[in-house]
């Protein structure tokens, strides 16, 4: 009796020892630590960058207030403003929304939902992926040759129309790919349910596939707009104005869109090349103005993303039923 008890005791102790005494997972902890350090490093760089930009921009908004947003480009840092850049960037965003959204979404839905899988289909997909990786300056050449020179009777040459169409083409592959991926992620059970009650392909796509894929499609389209807003290289080729852009009074919208233009990234690029001499009245430099322009561009992109997130949340609520 005593013997059994002692055996049970010792075996219970042995189990306790085995269960509690295991080696610490040193490698796992090191790995987690490395991940954390990488994250903190990235955040640090971002914070320093943002701080530098915002600290320089604050005096501009204090001394110039809204004049900075409403003035035209000018050689004096006391008068220069970003209104033309904001207008140009908004126009480009509009072209992307009006041209690239419908074409890109339609192409993506066709590729995934309608086209039969074939070698040709796979070839097209591969090439769209490649197009998404083509350097943007190459699209600038395309825009220069086709829209600025070839179609100048329509676009007015070096105009915001040429720039808008070029950037719409630039972001088209991104929209097609994200749309196709969102559509392919729709559960097949949902399609079967739609077809099962006698829905046609169009009805099933419209009522079930597209609503389910909408949040993903929206994310892709907003990434595309943000990308277009940030592009500078192709616009330099197309001929966005970096120096002084005189605004002509009394132009119609069409004339304005066919005329000379600039955008926010181009304004930033142009001011970076200006002589860094303080203005006589405000004492502001172009370097500070540039930081303020970057803040304006960031706010535009952030506002777009916020709108996209709000919309996506709404679509996702609908997905729950």
């Amino acid at each position, binding site marked *: 009796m005593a013997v059994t008890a002692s055996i049970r005791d010792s075996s219970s102790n042995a189990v306790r020892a085995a269960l509690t005494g295991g080696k610490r997972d040193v490698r796992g902890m090191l790995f987690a630590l490395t991940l954390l350090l990488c994250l903190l490093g990235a955040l640090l760089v971002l914070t320093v960058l943002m701080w530098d930009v915002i600290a320089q921009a604050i005096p501009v908004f204090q001394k110039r207030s809204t004049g900075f947003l409403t003035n035209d480009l000018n050689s004096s840092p006391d008068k220069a403003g970003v209104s033309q850049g904001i207008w140009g960037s908004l126009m480009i965003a509009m072209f992307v929304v009006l041209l690239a959204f419908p074409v890109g979404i339609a192409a993506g839905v066709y590729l995934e939902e309608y086209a039969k*899988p074939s070698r040709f289909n796979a070839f097209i997909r591969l090439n769209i992926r490649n197009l998404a990786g083509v350097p943007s300056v190459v699209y600038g050449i395309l825009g220069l040759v086709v829209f600025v020179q070839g179609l100048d009777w329509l676009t007015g040459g070096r105009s915001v129309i040429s720039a808008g169409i070029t950037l719409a083409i630039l972001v088209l592959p991104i929209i097609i790919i994200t749309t196709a991926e969102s559509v392919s992620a729709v559960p097949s059970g949902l399609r079967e*349910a739609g077809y099962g*009650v*006698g*829905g046609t392909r169009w009805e099933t796509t419209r009522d079930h596939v597209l609503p389910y894929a909408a949040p993903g499609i929206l994310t892709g389209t907003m990434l595309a707009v943000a990308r277009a807003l940030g592009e500078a290289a192709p616009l330099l080729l197309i001929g966005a104005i970096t120096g002084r852009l005189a605004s002509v009074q009394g132009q119609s919208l069409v004339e304005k869109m066919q005329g000379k233009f600039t955008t926010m990234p181009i304004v930033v690029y142009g001011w970076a090349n200006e002589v860094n001499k303080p203005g006589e009245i405000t004492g502001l430099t172009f370097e500070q103005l540039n930081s303020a322009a970057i803040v304006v561009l960031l706010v535009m992109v952030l506002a777009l993303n916020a709108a996209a997130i709000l919309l996506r949340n709404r679509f996702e609520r609908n997905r729950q*039923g």
Partner: protein
Amino acid sequence: MNQQQSNLEEHYPMADDHIDGVVTADDRVVFTTKDLEVYYGEFRAVREVNLDIKQGEITSFIGPSGCGKSTVLRCFNRMNDLIPSARVNGEVLFRSVNLYDPQVNAVEVRRRVGMVFQKANPFPKSIYDNVAYGPRLTGVKKKGDLDAIVEKSLRDAALWDEVKSRLKASGMGLSGGQQQRLCIARAVAVEPEVLLMDEPCSALDPIATARIEDLMQEIKNKYTIIIVTHNMQQAGRVSDRTAFFTTEVNPESDRRTGVLVEFDKTATIFSTPSDERTEAYVSGRFG
């Protein structure tokens, strides 16, 4: 076991009436397959299926995995069309019209031959909109008409009492068994002649399964039902006729092809099958 036995006894006399009774005219045949074969690309999934499905009966397809029973079921409403590589040989006659005739519109077929899937797949919409979706597609617009259809369908699916107070709630919020009954309500809302059920209870607990089985008995006068099931007891409990499928290995390619072994009254399949493979399967010796 006893429970099952009594169920069988209760059930079969009525079933026999159906099968051996006076009404044996051809208009009771809903589906006839003639040398039906389905290929996925080069692979022949099932070969030479010949069977008749009779109106007002529950027909079950049983057999081991990969024997082609679901594949055959999905031929009855052209669901295989959704699989790009699938190809169908032979004929599937629905009221003597070949469903695979090039002039036949698959959408019209599916409005007459509804389907309930293995995994309950309600739309991410309200309970009401789930059921009303099919009728809306066919052109029912008036709210009063839709309300009546929704109530009738949910009653048919034995779900009305549980959901009548929350028709606007999401169909995704129901329990698994309720979701599956919602899918049945959605399928019957377009008043199909036939209901195809592809392992409708495989994800459900025994209580939810029993509810669906009771439901099948209640609605089989209105809808001819074909059910694929892995559960032999279920086939024995609910169906009038049973088709047993199995796989045959092709000695040349080592690929497995499904084949219909035996098709008969359920009582015969489970008591005195004529093929020894059926006997081995239903007695649990393989599969």
